[in-house]
């Protein structure tokens, strides 16, 4: 019983996450192709420049829709709790793989929570600005000033999004066990306790999680 692994993500959540991930990679590659001349060759992955231009917005909209499902699924778990502030202050220790003085946290650590809200903001900006600069359908309804602003905001939000995802992917590479949690869903008890202790206590019902907040830190 004690060695039984814990289900961190069910099949629907995993599918949803990877759909968003695949769509993000496609949107990012096609977007980067149009962003910098040095990366225009990426447009060949999509069948050339015109196809890249045609596909990119559809990929983006699809990514947004699936991302919304993820938001609906996970937004509650991404509210900040008391321990998060201390965790963030001790981020240097976290970065060095040190655990002493790092408070226990819930299902998501504050870094993941910041990522979550950053992604949501970026996705919203990308969607709204993307509609404005979508020549084939919507640009005729907007003035040139809005189009210019939207173009800049679109590039800025995409830049922040790509940076965030680079961090997100590296965190998965760095914290062993997290990629498999998203691939097949299960984490070991030791993993859960080490990285998300409050969540671990909650799902194993060892203790009511509230009474434990702040104890370790």
């Amino acid at each position, binding site marked *: 019983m*004690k060695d039984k692994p814990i289900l961190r993500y069910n099949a629907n959540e995993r599918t949803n996450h990877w759909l968003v991930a695949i769509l993000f990679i496609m949107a990012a590659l096609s977007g980067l*192709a*149009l*962003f*910098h*001349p*040095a*990366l*225009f060759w990426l*447009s060949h992955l999509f069948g*050339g*420049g*015109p196809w*890249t*231009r045609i596909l990119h917005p559809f990929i983006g909209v699809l990514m947004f829709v699936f991302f919304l499902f993820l938001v609906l699924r996970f937004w509650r778990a991404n509210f900040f709790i008391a321990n998060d502030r201390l965790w963030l202050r001790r981020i240097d220790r976290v*970065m*060095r*793989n040190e655990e002493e003085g790092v408070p226990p946290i819930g299902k998501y650590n504050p870094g993941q929570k910041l990522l979550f809200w950053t992604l949501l903001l970026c996705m919203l900006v990308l969607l709204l600005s993307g509609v404005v*600069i979508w*020549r*084939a359908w919507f*640009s005729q309804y907007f003035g*040139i000033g809005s*189009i*210019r*602003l939207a*173009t*800049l905001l679109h*590039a*800025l939000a995409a*830049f922040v999004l*790509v*940076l965030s995802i*680079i*961090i997100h*992917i*590296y965190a998965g*590479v*760095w*914290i*062993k*066990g997290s990629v498999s949690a998203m691939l097949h869903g299960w984490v*070991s*008890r*030791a*993993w*859960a*306790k*080490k*990285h998300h202790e409050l969540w*671990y206590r909650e799902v*194993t019902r*060892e203790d009511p999680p509230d009474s434990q907040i702040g104890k370790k830190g």
Partner: protein
Amino acid sequence: MASQDIIARSATTTAPPSIRQQEEVAKLIDTTKCIGCKACQVACSEWNELRDEVGHSYGTYDNPHDLGAETWTLMRFTEHENADGNLEWLIRKDGCMHCADPGCLKACPSPGAIIKHANGIVDFNQDHCIGCGYCITGCPFNIPRISQKDHKAYKCTLCSDRVAVGLEPACVKTCPTGAIVFGSKEDMKEHAAERIVDLKSRGFDNAGLYDPDGVGGTHVMYVLHHADQPKLYAGLPDQPVISPLVGLWKGISKPLALLAMGAAVLAGFFHYVRIGPNRVEEDEHPSAPDTSVHVVDPAVHVYDPHKPGGQGEERP
């Protein structure tokens, strides 16, 4: 034109072929001589094999109503009441200005879709155009249009095909009043200067040449009666510049963003190299509660066998 004549190319970060010295050309449009006959529009349409739809009247003589993928030049008519209460009919032949610093070329993401020839002509290569419309976003004069037929961008070519073989543009050739002239940019400026002297002598004190510095000068220039108020001429921009938003988007942000993304990937890699992965020791028994740990007093205690009770001090 020979490929050596291309001195700027969209979405290209290295220097294009630029060793040949060529004289810059310019088209000079004298709005003060224009009678609004639209022969230039017809000549443009004939030479370039363009047949736009017959549109609707919106209460002006403008026909079609706007520039389009099949209307590369358009007479724009403005009824202006001057300070004396007299009506002035200001007619401006609108179309690409062929900027020395073209906003369209700066914004275009497709290599070679927009080029600038050594003689100053800015040309679209529809074969490389991807139809994104960034050229429209970049243009300070609102000129390029995307065709709904093929989703390619079009605009006036300054008849680059004619100019390449030593002919003047079709609109110039057809203009019955000599309001449109074509030649080297220097010659056109000289010609304009003479016209302006003439206009000033006739009471147009603000007559002047429109060759805006904000875009590095243009290869289509206007002689205006009211050069102090270009806006009067159907919204000709007073001080056209590539929008700072476009400048930011297509300028410093591009290399910086790429650099930052590369740096983030490298930072991750070296974090892994220096700090290493974070692994869970699976033999750390996860479910042992904290309370089961025995409390051990680490203090050193003196043991004195002669004292009663056998201890130097009480153990906790």
